[in-house]
């Protein structure tokens, strides 16, 4: 026994000495750079940190496809996609600032601690200058703060919680995707038209930052219509079977069920709610309805016919007809044989926006890139003119209200665009109470 202890200690000692020895040269090199991971060779490395396993895995895999496509376009391979349509014309398909773009990928498993460890390894071991990715706001918030501390740029991909650019906003973090507040603001008028102003809503909510802010946002905007919130039940992420949460809805007196769920959870909760016959019921003299505030094509495919007639919102959809969307759908569709999801679009756009900002700034220095992105106005990347607001690093643009299609013509024809909600309707002040109020601050930009 004691012998074993000795050898264990020996291993630890050796490990510590070796580790320190290995770390020493890095300490010297890092102090020589002007900022974290300044690229010195002929290439620059980006890190794509997405869930490749867990309930949001399918979204993560589609993001990866888009990242890969974006890198190809930046390096001049393929047809160039949105490089040809984006309003800023700095990118010529010859890498970024003359350097070839390379990338590394990581699996966040939709868990904050795993995502942080993976991001940490990308920064320290692979030397990335930017990390993008997401799926799950819990993960995005955690990785964003890590990037802030490490002094690199975080281009958030799929994260919809108000907190990402609200109370947890960071100077080194930027979000193109829309948020829970915008979903609520966009969908409320459509719901009012379709279902009237006297409704009683029951919420099932994913129990983490995104679910909470999504529920708060949609409750606020539906209550403003005159709807009553009967109950809000928090459900664990990845619960699988939601039947024991759905059964109590039946006799609760509610006539609308709002599912603040995403990914695999939403597929399950919606399918099970339909199994329980909720949509065939008449309550309070009205047809019972189900609403899914945040939609995605991948969820629609998973839920099959259960989504028919169900309203939700999206950041972007491949059916839009603008040149940016068409160029992207063509590149993506020809490479992968399927239309891109909203998650893929955000991943692609964020990578291009980063590359463009670096080119305009003439450097990979995080603070100069941040300055180039702040207040940046652009177009030609789908969904119309967009602004990166300087105060909170949130993009502002139109929002899509979607509905599950009643008679899909093929496997991708699952959702239809009901309304393109104009940007003015979803805008809010940077110090809005749902976004951390007056105390929320980006802090200081960090170059590392």
């Amino acid at each position: 026994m004691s012998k074993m202890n000795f050898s264990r200690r020996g291993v630890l000692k050796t490990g510590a000495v070796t580790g320190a020895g290995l770390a020493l040269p890095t300490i010297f090199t890092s102090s020589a750079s002007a900022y974290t991971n300044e690229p010195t060779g002929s290439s620059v490395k980006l890190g794509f940190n997405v869930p490749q396993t867990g309930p949001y895995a399918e979204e993560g895999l589609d993001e990866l496809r888009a990242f890969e496509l974006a890198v190809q376009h930046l390096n001049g391979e393929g047809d160039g996609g949105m490089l040809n349509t984006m309003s800023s014309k700095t990118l010529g398909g010859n890498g970024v600032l003359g350097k070839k773009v390379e990338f590394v990928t990581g699996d966040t498993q939709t868990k904050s601690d795993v995502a942080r460890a993976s991001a940490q390894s990308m920064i320290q071991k692979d030397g990335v200058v930017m990390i993008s990715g997401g799926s799950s706001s819990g993960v995005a918030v955690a990785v964003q703060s890590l990037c802030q501390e490490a002094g690199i740029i975080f281009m958030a991909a799929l994260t919809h919680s108000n907190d990402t650019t609200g109370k947890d906003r960071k100077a080194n973090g930027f979000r193109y995707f829309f948020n829970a507040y915008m979903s609520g603001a966009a969908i409320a008028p459509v719901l009012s038209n379709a279902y009237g102003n006297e409704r009683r809503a029951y919420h099932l909510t994913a129990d983490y930052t995104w679910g909470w802010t999504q529920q708060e946002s949609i409750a606020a905007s539906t209550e403003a219509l005159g709807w009553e919130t009967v109950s809000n039940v928090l459900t664990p992420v990845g619960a699988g079977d939601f039947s024991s949460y759905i059964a109590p809805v039946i006799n609760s007196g509610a006539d609308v069920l709002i599912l603040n769920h995403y990914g695999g959870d939403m597929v399950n909760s919606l399918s099970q709610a339909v199994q329980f016959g909720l949509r065939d019921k008449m309550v309070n003299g009205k047809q019972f309805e189900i609403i899914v505030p945040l939609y995605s094509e991948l969820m629609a495919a998973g839920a099959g016919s259960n989504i028919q007639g169900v309203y939700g919102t999206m950041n972007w959809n491949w059916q839009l007809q603008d040149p940016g969307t068409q160029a992207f759908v063509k590149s993506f569709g020809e490479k992968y044989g399927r239309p891109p999801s909203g998650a893929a679009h955000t991943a692609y756009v964020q990578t291009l926006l980063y590359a463009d900002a670096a080119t305009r700034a003439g450097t990979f220095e995080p603070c100069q890139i941040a300055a180039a992105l702040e207040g940046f106005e652009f177009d030609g990347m789908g969904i119309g003119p967009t602004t990166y607001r300087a105060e909170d690093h949130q993009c502002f643009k139109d929002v899509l209200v979607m509905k599950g299609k009643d008679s899909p013509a093929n496997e991708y024809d699952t959702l239809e665009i009901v309304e393109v909600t104009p940007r003015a309707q979803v805008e809010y002040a940077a110090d809005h109470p749902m976004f951390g109020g007056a105390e929320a601050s980006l802090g200081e930009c960090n170059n590392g």
Partner: protein
Amino acid sequence: MDALFLQILNGLEKGGAYALIAMGLTLIFGTLGVVNFAHGALFMIGAFVAVTMQRIFNFSLEIVDATQKDFLGNPLKVKVPYVIEWFGDGFGGFLIDWSVPLAILLAIPVMMLVGFVMERGLIKHFYKRPHADQILVTFGLAIVLQEIVKYFFGANPIPTPAPSDYRGTIEMAIFGLNLSYPVWRLIYFFFSAAVIAAVFAFLQFTTFGMVVRAGMADRETVGLLGIDIDRRFTLMFGIAAAVAGLAGVMYTPILSPNYHMGMDFLVLSFVVVVVGGMGSLSGAVAAGFLLGILQAFASMNEVKSLIPGIDQIIIYLVAIVILLTRPRGLLGRKGVMED
């Protein structure tokens, strides 16, 4: 009151799945002395047998329809399943509609084969190793199986609906209460009860079952009587795998299968086995239904508002209480895992 009854039904249906998996776990433990952490993966593979069946029946030939366009503006390829082409809308449509129940026929041989290969190919070599080694190797195996399934079927849940006549709800009058409950979930409960009864009958009323029970009680003596108990135990492993597989097949209309569903069920089923008593079949079944119902009750808003988060810890809480008061579990025997 209605809500309480609905939760009992929910608990019975979920408990059915727990009981089926836990029964296999405890059967393997009782016969082979192995804690099989890959048992959840067998449940998952069963579910994917149903997916495969659905894919086979939906295997289509593509006819290019120039009048319609796909998302890139190319002529649309319309898919017509071969079974419709061969057997017409009537029988072909029936096969597609009934692919989940029909998958049972495929699942039994496939799962027994998977069970044999697993036992003979890998687990056999770990009989004499400590339980920790067995847990590690079977857990690793579960991850490998999970990744294989993910490679072929993707990470998203795949919708596998019940036959169209059984998708809706059924109206029931119980104790003067009018309840409506999903038909398929009721079917699942009765199905699991039938499978449990069949396994018990097999062990109780057949000579084979008698030998297996004797082997579980005293392996050495049975061996001395000249009976090749290992061969029988291997067959029991196959049966346990088939039971988990059937549980998975029939569960697909309730929960669209995804590659990690096995892990989700495994941990709970393992708790069920421990609560029921390691190696006790009836204990596993009783604990499965008990924990299923308790979990359903704990998910009710009235309970959750009193004790937030109780729905997620109730099973473990009950496990702690039972292990403190009855260290061998509800129906555990003396001497199991105590040497």
